[in-house]
C-alpha cells in the first residue's frame, strides 16, 4: 500500500496545517509558508512543497499509519488505556521514561522495528495473561492493530483447542472459578483457569478484558509509571475501618508480617504488594515480582485480619499432649499441605506423606476425643 492509497496522509497534512507541526513517535512534520520540513531517524528534509512531501513520505508509510492509529484510533492522551496499549507493543510511553520500572525491562522499539515485529505479533505477559499485538493485515499493513489474549499456559496451544471469545465481558465468567470449579474471590490469585482465548480485540476491548480479569491493575500500574501511585499502608487502612472491622488496627506489628506472608506472596497473589506497615516501617516479607502494584490491603486481607486480630488478643497457654515423634512431624506435614494447597495432589495410597488422608484419619481415630478435638491438658501456669 502506498501512502497516497492509504488515506492516512490527508489527516496528517490537515493536522500539520492546523498545528504547524506534528511530532509523534519519531516523525516530525513541520509546515510553514506552504513549505514542509520532514524528519525521522533516517530522514531530514526541508523546503518541500506538497508534491515533494508526498514523494518523501512514500517510503515512510509506517510513520504515517502509526500516527493515524495512535492519534485517531486510540487517542486518549495521558490515559492508562493508551499507555497500556503502547506497552503492549513496546512503544515508548509518555511520562514513563524517567522511571526505572520492572515492566519496562525490555527496550522500546522505534516505528520501523515495531512494524517488523507487529507482522509476527508482539507478546507481553500481564500476570497469567499473555497478550499479542499484531497487524490485522500482515501482507499490507495499514497500521490497524488487533489484540489476542490468552492464558500464559496456553502459549503453545493451537487456537483450535481453545474456547474462543470476542466479547471482553466473557472474561468475567472465565475469572469466576478456578480449574476445579472453586470460586476465586481474589481476582489476582494465580489460579486463573486456562483453555480459552480472545482473538481480534480492539484496543479498548483488550483493556476492558484485562480489567475484567485483573481489575484496576492497569490504572495503578500507570500511576506507578508516572510516580503517582498513592499507597495506603496497613495502619492507615486498618484505622479507616468501621463496623466489625474496626478492631483490625490492633493487630500486632509482627502479625502483619505473618499476614503478608500468608496472603500476599507471589504464590498467592500476583499483585506486587507495595504497602508496608506504615510509612518508613517496611514489612520483612518480599512484596512479589508482578508488573502491577497492590496499593493497599484488599478486602480479603481485611476480612482475614479481623480473625487474626481476635486470635492475637488471646493469651498463650501451655498444653500437654501425647504424640510420637512421627505424629508430631505429621502435624507439620498436614499444616504444610493445607497451606500450600497440596491436599488434592496427595495420592490415596501415598502413606509416606504425613498429609495422606488415611494417615490423617488414623491420627484422628487415635488421638482425638469424642468431640472431635485433640486430647490435650492445659498446664497450670503457676
Amino acid at each position, binding site marked *: 500500500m502506498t501512502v497516497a492509497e492509504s488515506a492516512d496522509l490527508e489527516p496528517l497534512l490537515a493536522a500539520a496545517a492546523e498545528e504547524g507541526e506534528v511530532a509523534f513517535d519519531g516523525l516530525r512534520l513541520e509546515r510553514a509558508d506552504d513549505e514542509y520540513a520532514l524528519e525521522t531517524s533516517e530522514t531530514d528534509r526541508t523546503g518541500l512543497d506538497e508534491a515533494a512531501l508526498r514523494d518523501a513520505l512514500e517510503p515512510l508509510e509506517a510513520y504515517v499509519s502509526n500516527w493515524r492509529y495512535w492519534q485517531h484510533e486510540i487517542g486518549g492522551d495521558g490515559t*492508562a488505556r493508551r499507555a497500556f496499549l503502547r506497552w503492549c507493543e513496546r512503544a515508548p510511553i509518555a511520562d514513563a521514561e524517567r522511571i526505572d520500572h520492572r515492566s519496562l525491562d525490555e527496550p522500546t522499539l522505534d516505528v520501523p522495528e515495531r512494524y517488523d515485529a507487529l507482522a509476527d505479533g508482539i507478546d507481553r505477559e500481564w500476570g497469567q495473561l499473555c497478550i499479542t499485538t499484531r497487524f490485522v493485515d500482515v501482507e499490507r499493513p495499514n497500521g490497524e492493530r488487533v489484540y489476542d489474549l490468552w492464558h500464559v499456559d496456553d502459549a503453545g496451544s493451537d487456537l483450535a483447542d481453545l474456547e474462543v471469545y470476542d466479547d471482553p465481558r466473557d472474561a468475567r465468567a472465565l475469572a469466576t472459578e478456578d480449574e476445579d470449579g472453586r470460586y476465586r474471590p481474589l481476582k489476582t490469585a494465580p489460579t486463573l483457569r486456562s483453555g480459552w482465548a480472545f482473538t481480534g480485540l480492539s484496543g479498548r476491548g483488550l483493556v476492558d478484558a484485562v480489567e475484567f480479569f485483573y481489575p*484496576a491493575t*492497569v490504572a*495503578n500500574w500507570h500511576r506507578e509509571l508516572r510516580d503517582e501511585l498513592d499507597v495506603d499502608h496497613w495502619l492507615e487502612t486498618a484505622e479507616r475501618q468501621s463496623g466489625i472491622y474496626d478492631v483490625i488496627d490492633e493487630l500486632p506489628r509482627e502479625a502483619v508480617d505473618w499476614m503478608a506472608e500468608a496472603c500476599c506472596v507471589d504464590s498467592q497473589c500476583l499483585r506486587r504488594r507495595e504497602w508496608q506497615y506504615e510509612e518508613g516501617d517496611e514489612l520483612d516479607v518480599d512484596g512479589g515480582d508482578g508488573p502491577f502494584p497492590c496499593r493497599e490491603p484488599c478486602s480479603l486481607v481485611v476480612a482475614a485480619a479481623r480473625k487474626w486480630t481476635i486470635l492475637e488478643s488471646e493469651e498463650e497457654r501451655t498444653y500437654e499432649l501425647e504424640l510420637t515423634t512421627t505424629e508430631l512431624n505429621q502435624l507439620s506435614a498436614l499444616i504444610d499441605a493445607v497451606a500450600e494447597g497440596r491436599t488434592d495432589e496427595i495420592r490415596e495410597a501415598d502413606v509416606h506423606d504425613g498429609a495422606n488422608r488415611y494417615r490423617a484419619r488414623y491420627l484422628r481415630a487415635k488421638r482425638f476425643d469424642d468431640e472431635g478435638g485433640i486430647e490435650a491438658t492445659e498446664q497450670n501456669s503457676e
Partner: protein
Amino acid sequence: MQALVIAAHGSHLNPDASDPTYAHADTVRETGAFDEVREAFWKEEPHFREVIRTLESDEVFVVPLFISEGYFTEQVIPRELRLEDWDPEKWESDGTDASQVTLEATDVGKTIHYCGPVGTHDAMTDVIVQRAESITEDPEVGEGFGLAVVGHGTERNENSAKAVEYHTERIREQDRFDEVKALFMDEEPEVDDVTDFFETDDIVVVPLFIADGYHTQEDIPEDVGLTEDYRLGWNVPAEVEGHRIWYAGAVGTEGLMADVILERAADAGADLGDAIERVRAATAVGTDEVRRETEPGTGAGD
C-alpha cells in the same frame, strides 16, 4: 464523558452475589447512554476504593445497589470512594428520601454524583410489582392476589424496614392487589406467619433483597413453609396452609432493576437520551430479554 458506577456488596464466598450487578450493568451498557459503565464491590474487585481511577470520564454517577440508606450508603461507600466533603446530612433524608449529592473524589479529582440507593427510589415500586408479574407469568396479576413485600427487619439498620414499608404503602395505593403487606424476617409482623395475614388464596412473596443468597434461598423458603429443606427446592406456586404461595426470590435479580439504576443517574443529572424507555421495553414481562432467576414450576433451590 460520563461514567456510571454501580456499587454493590459482593461476596468472598459466593459468586452469585454479584450476578445481578453484572446483569444490570450489561443492560445499561447496551443502551450506550454512558461512555463507561463499571461494577464495583465491597467484597470483590474492583473494590470501591479503586474503581473511580479506572475511569476516563470526569463526570461519574455512582449508584449504590443497596436496598436502604444506612451503614453502607452513608459510611462505607463515601469513605472508600474518598468523597471528602461527604456528610449524610447532605442527603437531607429521613431514611427513604436520598436523591443525590455532587462531590469531588479527592484521589482522582473527578466530579462524583453520589446517588441514593436503588431500594428507596420510587421506580423500585414498579420492580416489585413486575417481580409479581414475572413470577406468575401474568402481566395483569393483581385481582384475587395478595402481595407480601419481605424485608430483613431491624438488625443494625432501621431504614431497611422503612424502605419495605414505603413501597408496600405505594403498591397499596395502586389498588391493584387485594391485599399488600410488609413482612420481616427479624421483627413483627413476621414472614413465618405469612398465611395469617392474607385472606386471598394466592399470595406473591417478594423479598426486598438485592441478590439471592442465604436469606432468600434458604431462610425464607423454609420459614414460610415452602419446603422442609431448601436443598430439596420448592414449587412455584407452593401449597401452604390452604394458600398458594408464589415465591419470587430476590427482587434485585429482576431485569427492570436496570431502570431504577438509570432513574437514579437521571435524577442526578446524567444525560441518558431514551435509555430509560429502551430498558423498560427490553425488560418488560413477556419479552424475551427478561431475566428470570426462578422459572415457575421448578424449585429455585434445586
